[in-house]
């Protein structure tokens, strides 16, 4: 662009800030984030490479760590308490490729389509499937939020905090993170919170486990005690905890809001893989911790069940054996797990509703401009928090309902994922390869069978 001066054209300096001002606010903030990524790509040297890697991580780690939520932590603790160091440690290692293969597809979908999962289902497959997916997701997210608040209140009770105060602290913290931070800072703050989920890794060393026994589980992988109904129940619970429908929606929307483009697919895959490794490591550490300290104590024989090995019993056993500090660290981990999952679930609900109704949908939006976007997530959180405070509410029944809804939703969520990622019109050259489809269909068949059986076993306890 130039201006005529004495017959000559004088170049006006290019004003990047003026150009940014012309963009809508959510795109402007994303553009600034992407400019920083582009600047790192232009720089040479090891420091620039490290900073680029750090800039591109986020949704993959967040989704996997948030999957180790309060319910997940309790499930792993019960698994180790009931079955010790055995079948479930190698199983958790197998969950790394399983979770990775499912979740990395959302990275590609987001990078290529620049749209969330709910939006793609609604627009490609119509309002029936769109409404079904959205309704199921919102109900499941809201009920899962109840379990997160149960974890937060239980964890805080270890430090003598009353449930009402714990719930208020939880609401204030989660709302502040979502409403006051724009995407980049929201993601960084969430990653810091997610980092504390790794508290379970040093915690395992308090138990002085026999690592040779842990290693042996890989060489002698078998089901100790045979295929009992309890074993099937715990197996299904662990698989159900590892892959949940909300994860697909969360990661795809998060990648879109982050600004992931096809050039970042490799980085997004690495982010997802690192997240899956963290998820499995934390799960294994919890299983080893309770497998070493709680397994074969207290409840044995016919009385063994997930209800007899409740979290209060597990923590009191740990406290008796190695003191109160590890129990306090465990409680901190449980609070952190509830908070990081609540942050992810709240955002997931807001993104999905915004995508379905074509509302503005970005954490880059200031509250007043994006109130339509923020309100569904905040309402779901407030409802969940209120439910936890109702005296004598059947929390066990609620937990069953969450799992049942997830089990109904799982096949649909996976089918739409598979359809979208194989849609050449949408994905172009980024469609699944034959090998990827073969792996995913195998995983789908196992997951759908397991989640259906799990859902049914919860309402028909004597099915197996």
């Amino acid at each position, binding site marked *: *662009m130039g201006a005529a001066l004495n017959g000559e054209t004088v170049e006006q300096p*290019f*004003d*990047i*800030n003026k*150009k*940014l001002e012309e*963009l*809508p606010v959510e*795109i*402007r*903030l*994303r*553009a*600034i984030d*992407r*400019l920083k990524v*582009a*600047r790192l790509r*232009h720089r040479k040297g090891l420091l620039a490479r490290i900073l680029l890697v750090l800039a591109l991580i986020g949704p993959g780690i967040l989704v996997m760590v948030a999957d180790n939520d309060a319910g997940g932590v309790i499930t792993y603790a019960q698994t180790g308490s009931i079955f010790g160091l055995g079948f479930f440690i190698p199983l958790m290692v197998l969950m790394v490729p399983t979770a990775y293969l499912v979740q990395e597809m959302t990275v590609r979908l987001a990078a290529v389509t*620049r*749209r969330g999962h709910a*939006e*793609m289902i609604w*627009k*490609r*497959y*119509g309002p029936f*499937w769109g409404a*079904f997916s959205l309704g199921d997701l919102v109900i499941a997210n809201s009920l899962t939020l109840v379990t997160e608040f149960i974890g937060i209140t239980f964890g805080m009770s270890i430090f003598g905090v009353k449930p009402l105060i714990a719930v208020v602290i939880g609401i204030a913290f989660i709302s502040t993170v979502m409403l006051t931070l724009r995407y980049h800072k929201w993601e960084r703050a969430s990653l810091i919170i997610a980092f504390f989920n790794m508290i379970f890794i040093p915690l395992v060393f308090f138990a002085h486990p026999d690592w040779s026994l842990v290693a042996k589980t890989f060489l002698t992988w078998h089901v100790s005690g045979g295929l009992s109904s309890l074993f099937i129940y715990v197996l299904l619970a662990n698989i159900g905890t590892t892959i949940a429908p909300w994860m697909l929606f969360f990661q795809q929307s998060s990648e879109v809001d982050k*600004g992931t*483009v096809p*050039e970042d697919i490799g980085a997004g895959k690495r982010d997802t893989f690192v997240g899956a490794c963290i998820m499995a490591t934390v799960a294994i550490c919890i299983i080893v911790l309770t497998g070493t300290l709680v397994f074969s104590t207290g409840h044995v024989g016919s009385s063994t069940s997930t209800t007899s090995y409740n979290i209060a019993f597990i923590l009191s056993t740990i406290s008796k054996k190695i003191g109160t500090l590890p129990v306090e660290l465990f409680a901190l981990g449980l609070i952190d797990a509830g908070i990081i999952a609540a942050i992810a679930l709240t955002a997931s609900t807001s993104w999905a509703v915004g995508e379905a109704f*074509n509302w*503005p*949908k970005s954490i880059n939006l200031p509250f007043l401009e994006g109130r339509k976007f923020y309100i569904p997530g905040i309402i779901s959180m407030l409802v969940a928090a209120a439910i936890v405070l109702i005296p004598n509410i059947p929390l066990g*029944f609620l937990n*069953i309902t969450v799992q*049942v809804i997830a*089990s*109904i939703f799982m*096949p*649909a969520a996976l*089918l739409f994922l598979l*359809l979208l990622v194989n*849609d050449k*019109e949408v994905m172009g050259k980024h469609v699944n390869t034959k090998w990827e489809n073969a792996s995913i269909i195998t995983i789908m068949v196992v997951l759908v069978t397991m989640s*259906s059986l799990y*859902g*049914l076993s*919860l*309402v*028909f306890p004597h099915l197996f």
Partner: protein
Amino acid sequence: MAIDENDFSFIKNEKDWDNFLKREKLKDYSKIPVKRAHVNGWVKFAFVFLRIYIVIMLALIVLGFLNII
């Protein structure tokens, strides 16, 4: 929020800026329509299976919950 232009000297002019916006897909996608997918072949079969699965699961779960209550 203003940024320091010197940090982004790789964007020198309008053309660089337009290329940047295009490469980074920085546009309002809500204004771009998405075409409905053609549902036929095995996809149609999968959708029928999915509907049957949902109906059966819902029926079994209602029965199960009635037993629990």
